[in-house]
């Protein structure tokens, strides 16, 4: 299977199953487009006719191009067959090791963001803070169940994790005290709204967290409208100087500015560029996922605008890179030569199998987006995973288990998409969130185009 498209004057051909990417001229683009269903002579006559006004196109030239396509096919870089389908179930079900936990150290928040998937931080339940004892048990649970994996990950999440900062620091210290003994390497991350960042948080984060996610929606009027405190005051003026100080202190490395865009700012590229103009260089902005009918929900009519925005963003990134003031956009950070292996691409995020969310009381859920849904409670850190039925459902989820993905060229980039988004969209973790698919495919097309421009 191949996918070919034109974007920003680049002609790009993706070979789905080998992962090969070809940047071609107009003639090769047309030859490849006809190759699999058109006799050779007909390809030549058709291309000759189309480019009749060009002196540089001859029959010999077209034959040479067809021969090059033949060569790529022999080298298994074009029109390759799917050799993974029959092995797919083993790629995810082969082991039961856990590699990451999302620790909900606070089911509470000091902001009142209207679009919050976590219901303003308390996940439709009571406000709560995780105790050191529960957190310690969670870390032990992770070590005990991580098998031979050396790198294990813990994200401090909420709500707002800085509301429970002392426990966060105690848990990091505990993890560091046991990692050598167990031959583990803890990688800690933090996701914060920034309101409580101070010098202690900055110093500790820069020493212990290999990445921090800083929530900023972009322009002040956009951010403040969506992310006020409980008195209705915007948070932009409070957090931006704190973020600036934190990022400067970590030499502009190991962080992401993470925004959310809604129906209210479908011109989200302006928000990305605003963050870049503030001096932040590692940027991300994500579409809100919310029930239809909410005032901020993205609509079908928004979709073409959003796709155009991704193109505008890609072009602006190329331009700024050339001007020496580049920035990165999370979804355009493809690592083509050292990217994920086929196992990872088929299995996806590992929610419910190798990745779990832990609530303040120690309950286990498949991921942070299922917390609060009692039907998806899987056990707890004291007794382990008790609901094997849910685990098996997640284990069976992969890119080949979704029939909607059968004809999709992007499947080995998205790995079948987000189970939580599918669940909230169509009520089935094995389904797909079609709106998200459309945006994802556009982002991948743009990301590969950026790579072509930089090659």
């Amino acid at each position: 299977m191949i996918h070919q498209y034109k974007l920003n004057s680049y002609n790009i051909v993706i070979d789905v199953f080998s992962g090969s990417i070809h940047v071609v001229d107009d003639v090769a683009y047309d030859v490849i487009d006809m190759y699999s269903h058109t006799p050779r002579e007909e390809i030549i006559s058709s291309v000759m006719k189309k480019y009749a006004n060009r002196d540089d196109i001859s029959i010999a030239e077209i034959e040479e191009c067809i021969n090059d396509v033949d060569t790529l096919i022999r080298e298994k870089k074009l029109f390759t067959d799917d050799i993974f389908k029959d092995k797919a179930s083993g790629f995810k079900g082969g082991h039961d090791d856990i590699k990451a936990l999302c620790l909900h150290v606070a089911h509470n928040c000091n902001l009142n963001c209207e679009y919050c998937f976590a219901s303003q931080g308390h996940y439709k339940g009571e406000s709560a803070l995780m105790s050191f004892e529960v957190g310690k048990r969670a870390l032990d649970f992770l070590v005990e169940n991580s098998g031979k994996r050396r790198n294990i990950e813990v994200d401090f999440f909420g709500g707002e994790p800085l509301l429970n900062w002392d426990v966060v620091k105690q848990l990091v210290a505990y993890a560091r005290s046991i990692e050598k003994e167990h031959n583990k390497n803890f990688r800690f991350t933090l996701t914060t709204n920034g309101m409580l960042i101070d010098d202690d948080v900055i110093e500790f984060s820069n020493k212990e967290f290999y990445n921090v996610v800083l929530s900023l929606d972009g322009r002040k009027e956009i951010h403040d409208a969506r992310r006020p405190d409980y008195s209705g005051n915007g948070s932009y003026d409070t957090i931006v100087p704190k973020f600036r100080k934190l990022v400067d202190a970590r030499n502009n490395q190991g962080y992401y500015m993470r925004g959310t865009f809604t129906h209210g700012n479908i011109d989200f590229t302006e928000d990305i560029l605003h963050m870049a103009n503030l001096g932040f260089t590692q940027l991300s902005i994500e579409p809100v996922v919310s029930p239809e009918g909410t005032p901020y929900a993205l609509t079908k009519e928004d979709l073409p605008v959003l796709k155009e925005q991704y193109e505008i963003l890609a072009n602006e990134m190329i331009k700024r890179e050339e001007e020496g003031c580049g920035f990165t956009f999370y979804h355009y950070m493809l690592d083509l030569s050292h990217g994920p292996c086929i196992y990872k691409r088929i299995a996806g995020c590992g929610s419910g199998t190798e990745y779990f969310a832990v609530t303040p009381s120690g309950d286990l859920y498949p991921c942070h987006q299922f917390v609060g849904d009692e039907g998806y409670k899987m056990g707890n850190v004291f007794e382990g995973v008790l609901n094997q039925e849910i685990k098996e459902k997640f284990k069976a989820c992969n890119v080949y288990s979704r029939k909607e993905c059968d004809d999709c060229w992007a499947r080995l980039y998205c790995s079948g998409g987000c189970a939580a988004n599918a669940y909230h969209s169509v009520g089935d973790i094995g389904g797909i969130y079609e709106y998200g698919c459309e945006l994802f495919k556009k982002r991948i097309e743009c990301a590969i185009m950026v790579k072509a421009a930089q090659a």
Partner: protein
Amino acid sequence: MKRIKTLQTRDLAKSIQGGCGECQTSCGVANQPC
């Protein structure tokens, strides 16, 4: 090749020879370094 430039990419078929789980958890599958 005159009209086709192939970018350097990881050969997915060869990557089977993968699955160690030492890379980061993903919630960005495509951009995880290996």
